[in-house]
């Protein structure tokens, strides 16, 4: 069904919180330079699934993961894989815009500094590049040293995306990145997604079915921890095969 | 990257060692006092007055004195503090000059060293108002000292009641007074109680403010009026430990007194902490 190159792939992924089995035998292929949306009712495990893709789920005390996640064919959960390395390759953007309470410049430079880049000139250049990519450069070039918290919600979210882009990740995970934004800021982020997918593989979790329909190339429908249906977004929204999917997307659910 | 990992390991260990040291010092202190004091405590020790120049007998008057001081102090400061807090949070606008003045006053009061409260108590209650060195002067001094704690915790408690509760109530046609009494105060209750307990704990343990305002080293019998001076546990311990002519003879009594004081204060403090924790966990808004 998926024809482009597979960038990221989960194989029989399972996640438990303590005794609670939250993600169940999840096998999904995520194609390169496409947008894959994960939809499903609240609490079905979308965020958990997403966080398992860059090993952020390990930060939850009591979380346990089994199965494989292959990034370009390599299992990121292998013993000798460094999770910080993985997180440089798989960036993440969160539900609420969360810039650090530092200057805009520092925010974007942060990941680069973590990576050991200290040369001022190089940093400037890379920061500018990232900010341009998210279309924020023109808006903030004159006040890069002002606090990032002065920006509006939508701008903050774009800054956070720029911050994630700065370290040149290959994959970007987004957990409901627009749910705290107004429709206009949301539209801007969606436009940005179209630009970004030229260079990045994107996985987005959203509650907003319309958003999934608008922006994604592929859609995965998740229910009670299981992958119910996965396919081209058109297929899912026009011809879902599964009864549950049909009920969910037509709002006849629950 | 390898360096980053090493840094992390070192940092974590430093932090672990720090907390271990911190806890073990205090832990040792508690262990020390408990082990030394436990053998002293008996029914008689708790219920008998001291005898033979303090070298024998119990500490009953000091216990009673402390309880009296604390009770009186809280009875004065809780209504005052709570009412202030209600005024500050519910009845005034944040920009009003008066509110800022009150806040400033509360903060200032909180920073005043206890010995300065002692000085003030002596100058104002003892001398100026003529209450003399008495239970009343000492309690008033203590109540002022714990007032900022009570105001601050009550304000916090009231503020932590989300505005949407108030809005919901007002939107249902309730008046402001009904809203405060029926919705805000019940929701803030645990926080207010914690504040009160904290105040009680502080009042019970302080020595400096009562030094010149009401505490005496020894008195015959219990105070009969609020104008009598009182014995108090902390003061008792202080004097026994530093000024008693026969220090080696009263050593066991020192430990005993220290332990009783410790238990009293820790108990109050523990109750406050437990209430707070339970409440924090239960709170869902």
């Amino acid at each position: 069904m998926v024809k482009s190159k597979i960038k990221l792939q989960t194989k029989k992924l399972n996640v438990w919180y303590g005794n609670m089995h939250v993600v169940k035998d999840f096998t999904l292929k995520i194609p390169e330079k496409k947008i894959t949306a994960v939809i499903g009712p609240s609490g079905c495990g979308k965020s958990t699934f997403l966080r398992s893709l860059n090993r952020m789920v390990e930060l939850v005390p009591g979380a346990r993961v089994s199965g494989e996640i292959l990034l370009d064919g390599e299992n990121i959960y292998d013993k000798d894989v460094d999770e910080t390395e993985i997180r440089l390759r798989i960036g993440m953007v969160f539900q609420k815009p969360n810039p650090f309470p530092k200057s805009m410049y520092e925010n974007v430079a942060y990941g680069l500094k973590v990576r050991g880049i200290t040369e001022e000139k190089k940093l400037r250049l890379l920061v500018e590049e990232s900010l341009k990519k998210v279309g924020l450069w023109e808006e903030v070039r004159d006040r890069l040293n002002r606090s990032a918290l002065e920006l509006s919600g939508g701008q903050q979210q774009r800054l956070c995306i720029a911050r994630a882009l700065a370290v040149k990740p290959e994959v970007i995970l987004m957990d409901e990145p627009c749910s705290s934004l107004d429709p206009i800021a949301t539209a801007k982020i969606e436009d940005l997604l179209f630009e970004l997918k030229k260079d990045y593989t994107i996985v987005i979790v959203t509650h907003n079915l319309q958003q999934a329909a608008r922006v994604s190339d592929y859609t995965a429908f998740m229910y009670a921890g299981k992958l119910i249906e996965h396919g081209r977004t058109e297929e899912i929204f026009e011809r879902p095969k599964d009864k549950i999917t049909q009920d969910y997307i037509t709002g006849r659910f629950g | 990257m390898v360096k980053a990992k090493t840094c992390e390991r070192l940092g974590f260990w430093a932090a672990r060692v720090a907390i271990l040291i911190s806890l073990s010092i205090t832990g040792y202190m508690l262990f020390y006092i408990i082990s030394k004091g436990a053998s002293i405590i008996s029914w008689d020790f708790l219920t008998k007055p001291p005898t033979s120049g303090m070298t024998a007998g119990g500490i009953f008057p000091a216990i009673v004195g402390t309880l009296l001081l604390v009770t009186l102090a809280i009875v004065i400061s809780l209504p005052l503090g709570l009412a202030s807090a209600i005024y500050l949070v519910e009845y005034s606008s944040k920009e009003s000059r008066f509110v800022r003045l009150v806040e400033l006053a509360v903060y200032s009061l909180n920073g005043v060293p206890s010995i300065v409260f002692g000085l003030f108590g002596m100058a104002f209650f003892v001398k100026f108002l003529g209450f003399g060195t008495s239970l009343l002067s000492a309690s008033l001094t203590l109540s002022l000292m714990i007032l900022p704690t009570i105001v601050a915790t009550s304000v916090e408690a009231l503020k932590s009641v989300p505005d949407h509760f108030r809005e919901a109530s007002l939107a249902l046609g309730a008046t402001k007074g009904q809203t405060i009494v029926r919705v805000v105060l019940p929701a803030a209750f645990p926080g207010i109680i914690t504040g009160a307990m904290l105040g009680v704990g502080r009042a019970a343990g302080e020595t400096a403010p009562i030094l010149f305002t009401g505490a005496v080293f020894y008195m015959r019998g219990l105070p009969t009026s609020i104008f009598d001076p009182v014995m108090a546990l902390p003061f008792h311990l202080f004097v026994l430990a530093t000024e008693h002519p026969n220090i080696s003879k009263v050593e066991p009594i020192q430990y005993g007194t220290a332990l009783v004081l410790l238990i009293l204060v820790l108990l109050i403090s523990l109750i406050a902490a437990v209430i707070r924790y339970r409440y924090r966990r239960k709170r869902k808004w």
Partner: protein
Amino acid sequence: MKLGTRKKLSEQLEDLKSKTMEMGALASTAVEKAVESLVKRNVRLAKKVIKEDDKIDDLEFEIENNCMHVIALQQPVAKDLRTIGTCLKIITDLERVGDRAVDIANITIEMAGRAPVKPLVDIPRMAELAVGMLRDSMRAFKEGNSSLAFELGKRDDEVDRLAHQVTRELFSYLVEDPKKISDAVRLMLVASFLERIADHATNIGERVIYMEKGEMVRIN
């Protein structure tokens, strides 16, 4: 669905479907009556058919509008959307069926007062078949019955066969008796109309299958 009385999506879809069913019933009846008027040379009935076509047109307009309402206001997806798409397409077919009924009725009027070309046998038979298909296509739509829809393909072939036969027969009349030319031509047209009505019924059947399965299938 009157304006100003908002309903839930499912109710609105039901409304749409029942309106479409109503339109289907009107169109079928119109064809029946038109053919009856032709057979019985009943001008009054023919005029009635022509007048009543307005109802069908109005209904098409209304249903189309409602479809747009529902899309604009409810963002239907998946089967809900396919149902609406199907309604949109079915109503154009039905409207065209209605127009053919009018065409037939007009022919009735044109031929009024003249001796018949020949006894009408095959045409009523075709009409019966075509209307039967139409009714069944609408039933398939109502019930979401795709196997019923699927059978329409075969039945359409039968109508096509009959149409050919009628045309051939009439051509022979044409050559025999030039005076009856114009009426013979008219009857040929009627046959072609009926054939097209059967085509429309087949189209509707295809749409029903699409609605149910999400795939376009050619059934003839």
